[in-house]
């Protein structure tokens, strides 16, 4: 078999040696340990000896060239028995493994004690798609972004993580688009809606007849809008049972203090929500007066601080936009929002007359935090509001 001739380590400080002469030539028979090549190191002249008996097959090294320790200088053809005798035919020593094989037992044969602390699974939020690295967080803070802004970014990191490279590419791509500033109102609403949406929200809807309300309002001055009737009915229903407006924090439900109900007012580039305090204790006339005051203040952007915030539910009237129904989103600190669509003529079966008669019908939708109440309770609340609205003189 073929045995390599390699450059030996002549001394700790020797890294290489220069070939100065070959003492034998290819074809020559040599014995083990015979001097076959003369080399020069920076300290002295030394000789390379033959690793075994055999025939010189070839020298791959060249005269007057330097070769490093362990370099192959040539080959010897040796008989199998010679190779076996000298142990040269065993498999080459294993190269340094790149991966470690874990030993099953320790050197004494005892099984290893498994560490209790190491190897615990990484907590779910420290890896994977939702993991934001410190650098990413810092950059997002710098740009005023939050996690919701990353919804449109596909992550190329491990388990779909958005890496800083992904992020910077995203920002660079964005900057190519036409850009206008978002008003502070817009940003505030965005933040509120994002926070609200972190809860599981659901919506139930119920058409309600408005004829009684429409007739009643003609008798009053100033005339309350139909949504005000809904607001009053909501307040009264909640004063009967305030549980649906409770707030869940952890495993506790915090009950509403006073029945303060807000209503949505469209403002430039956003929504304002002035609040009527103790709406359950104000009759329709007082409600209307207060409502008109607040709307005027809102329009002039002069709402005082104590006129907003702290409401337990909001009423929003998208009927003014001509919409039939919608699924509004409650404010982040609220469980309920009641929406009212436009009142539209609809055919209603009149049993007495035996025919369809025209009525004015609007769709009430109640969006709610489904952690606090379920469809049944939501439905019952809507039914109560609808029934209260059929007797507007009691509101």
């Amino acid at each position, binding site marked *: 078999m073929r045995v390599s001739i390699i450059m030996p*380590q002549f001394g*700790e*400080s*020797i*890294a290489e040696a220069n070939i100065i002469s070959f003492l034998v030539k290819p074809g020559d028979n040599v014995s083990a340990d015979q001097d076959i090549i003369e080399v020069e190191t920076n300290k002295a002249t030394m000789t390379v000896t033959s690793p075994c008996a055999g025939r010189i097959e070839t020298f791959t090294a060249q005269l007057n060239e330097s070769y490093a320790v362990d370099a192959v200088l040539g080959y010897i053809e040796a008989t199998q028995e010679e190779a076996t005798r000298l142990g040269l035919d065993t498999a080459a*020593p*294993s190269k*340094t*493994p*790149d991966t470690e094989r874990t030993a099953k037992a320790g050197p004494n044969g005892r099984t290893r004690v498994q560490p209790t602390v190491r190897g615990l699974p990484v907590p779910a939020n420290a890896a994977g798609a939702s993991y934001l*690295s*410190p*650098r*990413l*967080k*810092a950059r997002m803070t710098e740009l005023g972004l939050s996690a919701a802004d990353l919804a449109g970014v596909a992550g190329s*990191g*491990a388990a779909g*993580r958005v*890496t*800083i490279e992904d992020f910077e590419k995203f920002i660079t791509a964005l900057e190519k688009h036409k850009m206008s500033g978002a008003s502070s109102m817009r940003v505030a609403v965005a933040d509120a809606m994002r926070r609200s949406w972190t809860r599981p929200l659901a919506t139930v809807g119920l058409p309600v007849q408005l004829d009684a309300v429409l007739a009643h309002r003609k008798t009053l001055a100033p005339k309350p809008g139909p949504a005000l009737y809904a607001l009053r009915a909501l307040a009264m229903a909640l004063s009967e049972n305030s549980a649906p407006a409770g707030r869940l924090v952890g495993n506790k439900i915090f009950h509403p203090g006073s029945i303060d109900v807000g209503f949505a007012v469209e403002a430039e580039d956003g929504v304002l929500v002035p609040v009527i305090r103790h709406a359950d204790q104000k009759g329709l006339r007082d409600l209307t007066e207060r409502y008109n005051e607040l709307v005027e203040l809102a329009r002039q952007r002069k709402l005082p601080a104590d006129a907003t915030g702290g409401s337990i539910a909001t009423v929003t009237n998208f009927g003014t936009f001509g919409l039939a129904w919608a699924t509004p989103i409650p404010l982040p600190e609220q469980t309920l929002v009641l929406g009212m669509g436009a009142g539209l003529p609809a055919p209603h079966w009149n049993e007495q007359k035996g025919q369809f008669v025209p009525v004015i019908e609007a769709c009430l939708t109640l969006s709610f935090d489904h952690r606090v109440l379920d469809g049944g309770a939501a439905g019952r609340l809507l039914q109560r509001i609808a029934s209260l609205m059929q007797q507007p003189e009691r509101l």
Partner: protein
Amino acid sequence: MSLTYLEAIREAQARALRDDPRVFIYGQDVGAFGGAFKATKNLAVEFPGRVLDSPISEDAMVGMAVGAAIEGMRPIIEMQFADFSLVGFNQIVNQAGTMYWRTNVPCPITVRLPFGGVSGSGPFHSQCLEGLYAYYPGLIVLTPATVEDAYSMLLEAVALDDPVIFCEHRFLYYHLKAEKLPDEALPIGKARIAREGRDLTIVTYSAMVHEAIEAANELSSEGWEIEVVDLRSVKPLDTDTIVASVARTGKLLCVGEAWPWGGVTAEIVSRVAAEGFGLLDAPPQRLNAKDTPVPYHPNLWAAHRPTARSVAAAARNLLRQ
């Protein structure tokens, strides 16, 4: 004319002896023999009476250097191996290291340590002690990775008024060559960007700089550009350069040949975590030697310390996060 890392160290000592009459060299076998590694070859002849053979007494060698320094000399102590400096550890850290702080009298000694592994040297001729010396206040600890730095940093070390632990890597002694000696150099205390990169920063020192560069070349063919920072000095540590590099790449891998507990790589990670937390896009990593004495057999030795392959593997791991 090319010269090795070792020859550069000899040239630096020759120049120090020539330029400054206060310099002398003291160590085992440094005189006529020229030193175990020939770092002082011919210097005893060229500078008679200034390259002195000491008995095997590392404690007394360092004590003597301290005394000579108090008296205005600039002694260079050659330890035969870093491992043996431990016999003089007390004098280095408690006598030399505290002299200036306790008495306001500076102690300008230079202790040269041949350190680091060469296959076959075994547990007591291979140790990396830079972390141990950096731990003590009052010492400057240097780890040149290039022939040029071995030269210029040794000259600067001798000129400093503080005790300097000069860690010379034994593998680099004969394996590293350069065309010529440098005319100028970065000052002590500044790290060097050995290779510019974009995707990951490797911070390392001494022989491991070359392993890191080889790993970086391997990763370059895979589309990654790795930045390699050569610390040059372990104490003081150039935190600014390190943090600036991490600011560019977002990922940190510290590589050292020393043991894993504490030490230089842990110090770097700790500082980057504290000062550059918001720069990190992935957890900072370290790669060190295994937590056992340095083995003798080449197979074991090759697996004991980081290599270009293992550095590349660690980097790849980090790049994929």
